[in-house]
C-alpha cells in the first residue's frame, strides 16, 4: 500500500522546520511516522509535503526541572518506557508508554507524535490529560504553553495550528499514587476503554477511547471532591459522556467498562 504522492524535505532546525511548514498549506510534520504513515497508506491523510523533523535530535530529552519533568517531543516511546528518571519520578508515564503498540512501534513512535496526532484511542494523550501535563508549541508568533485540558479538541484535532510545532511536554511531579487500566482483547491492540487515574493533591481521572478525543471524567472527579465513596464515584464515571459504538464494543458496554475500570483504578489509588 502506497501513500499518495507527496514532496519531502528534511528540517535542519526548529526554525527551519517552521519555515518549511509555512511554505505549503497541506504540509505536515513527520517524526517517527507511526501514526501518520498508516493514515497516509489508507489515504486518510494526503499531505502534499512532509517536513521531516526526525533529524532534530535536540528535541529528544527527558529533563528534571524541579517541579516538573520536561520531555522533548522527539523522545521515542521506548525511551519513555526505559528512562530511569521517569521510572523514579513519573512511573505511570513509563508504564503507559510500555503499553503502546509493540516493541517495533515503540522503537520508532515519539511522544510528541502521539500527542500531536491526538487520537482519543491512544494511551499517552489520556495519561497526560490525567497528569495535568502541558504542551509547548512554537510557531511564527513564538512559543506558547497549552494545558492538556485545552489541547485535545476532537477527532484527531488539537489546539496546534498548522504552522506550529510541538516541541516539549511538561509533566508536573508530585504524583502520590496512580493507576492505569487498559482493557483490550488481544496483545498490541488499542484500548477498547482505558482509564488513567492520578492522585496529585486532588484525584484526576481520564479516559481512553470513550469519545473522539481523550476525556476527563468530570462526574467521577466531582463526586470524589464532594467526599463520595469509590463505588459512588465510579458509578458517575461516564456522566455526560457518550462513547462511540464500533466492532469492539457498543456504547453501552463502554460505559459499563468505564465504571468498572474506574472503580478498579480508584481502589488501586487508595
Amino acid at each position: 500500500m502506497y501513500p499518495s504522492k507527496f514532496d519531502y524535505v528534511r528540517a535542519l532546525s526548529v526554525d527551519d522546520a517552521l519555515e518549511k511548514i509555512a511554505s505549503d498549506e497541506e504540509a505536515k510534520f513527520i517524526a517517527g511516522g507511526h501514526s501518520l504513515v498508516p493514515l497516509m497508506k489508507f489515504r486518510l491523510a494526503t499531505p502534499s509535503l512532509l517536513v521531516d523533523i526526525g533529524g532534530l535530535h535536540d528535541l529528544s530529552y527527558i529533563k528534571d526541572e524541579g517541579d516538573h519533568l520536561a520531555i522533548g517531543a522527539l523522545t521515542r516511546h521506548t525511551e519513555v518506557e526505559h528512562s530511569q528518571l521517569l521510572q523514579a519520578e513519573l512511573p505511570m508515564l513509563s508504564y503507559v508508554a510500555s503499553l503502546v503498540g509493540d516493541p517495533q512501534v515503540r522503537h520508532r513512535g515519539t511522544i510528541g507524535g502521539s500527542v500531536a496526532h491526538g487520537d482519543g484511542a491512544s494511551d499517552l494523550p489520556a495519561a497526560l490529560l490525567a497528569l495535568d501535563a502541558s504542551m509547548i508549541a512554537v510557531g511564527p508568533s513564538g512559543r506558547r504553553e497549552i494545558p492538556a485540558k485545552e489541547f485535545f479538541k476532537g477527532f484527531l484535532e488539537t489546539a496546534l495550528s498548522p504552522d506550529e510545532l510541538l516541541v516539549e511536554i511538561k509533566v508536573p511531579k508530585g504524583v502520590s499514587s496512580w493507576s492505569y487500566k487498559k482493557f483490550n482483547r488481544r496483545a498490541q491492540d488499542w484500548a477498547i476503554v482505558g482509564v488513567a487515574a492520578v492522585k496529585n493533591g486532588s484525584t484526576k481521572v481520564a479516559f481512553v477511547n470513550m469519545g473522539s478525543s481523550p476525556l476527563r471524567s468530570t462526574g467521577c472527579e466531582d463526586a470524589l471532591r464532594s467526599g463520595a465513596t469509590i463505588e459512588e464515584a465510579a458509578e458517575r464515571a461516564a456522566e455526560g459522556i457518550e462513547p462511540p459504538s464500533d466492532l469492539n464494543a457498543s456504547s453501552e458496554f463502554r460505559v459499563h467498562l468505564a465504571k468498572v475500570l474506574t472503580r478498579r483504578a480508584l481502589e488501586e489509588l487508595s
Partner: protein
Amino acid sequence: MKVSMKINGVEYERDVEPRRLLVHYIREDVGLTGTNVGCDTSSCGACTVLMDGKSVKSCTVLAVQAEGAEITTIEGLAEPDGTLHPLQRAFQECHGLQCGYCTPGMVMASLSLIKENPGLDERKVREGLEGNLCRCTGYHNIVKAVLQAADEMGVKA
C-alpha cells in the same frame, strides 16, 4: 530523490520517490527479498528489520526516513561461509517455523529483544514478540528457540 543507507554492511544508493516504503526499497530496489510483507499495516511484524540496531516494521518507515541508517535484514545474520547465526540455528533445531513466512521478522524482532533484555524468560519473550504474528500458530517452539538462542548468546538470566 536519492536515498542511501547501509544494508548488512554494504552501502546502497537508489533514486526513489519519497513515498517509497523501506520494505520495498530493501526488496525491490536493492533486491534482498528475505524480508517479507505481511499485513502491510504495522500489525504482523513480517517486515521487521533492524534500523540502527533496533527492530522496526519496515512497511511503516519511509525509505527517505532511513537515509544514512544502518539496516540489518535476515540476509545479514549468517557468516559469509554460511554458518548460521545462533538464532537461525535455534529456530531450526527447535522447529520454530512451519510455513516460514513470519520467520525473518520473528528472527529480527527476537534479535533486538535479546540484545535489549538481559535476563529473558518465557513471559518476557512472549510479551516481547507481541508485534509478530505466526498464522501457523507455532508460538510455542518460537519462544523455545528464542530462549535457546538467548542462552547461547550469553544473555539469559
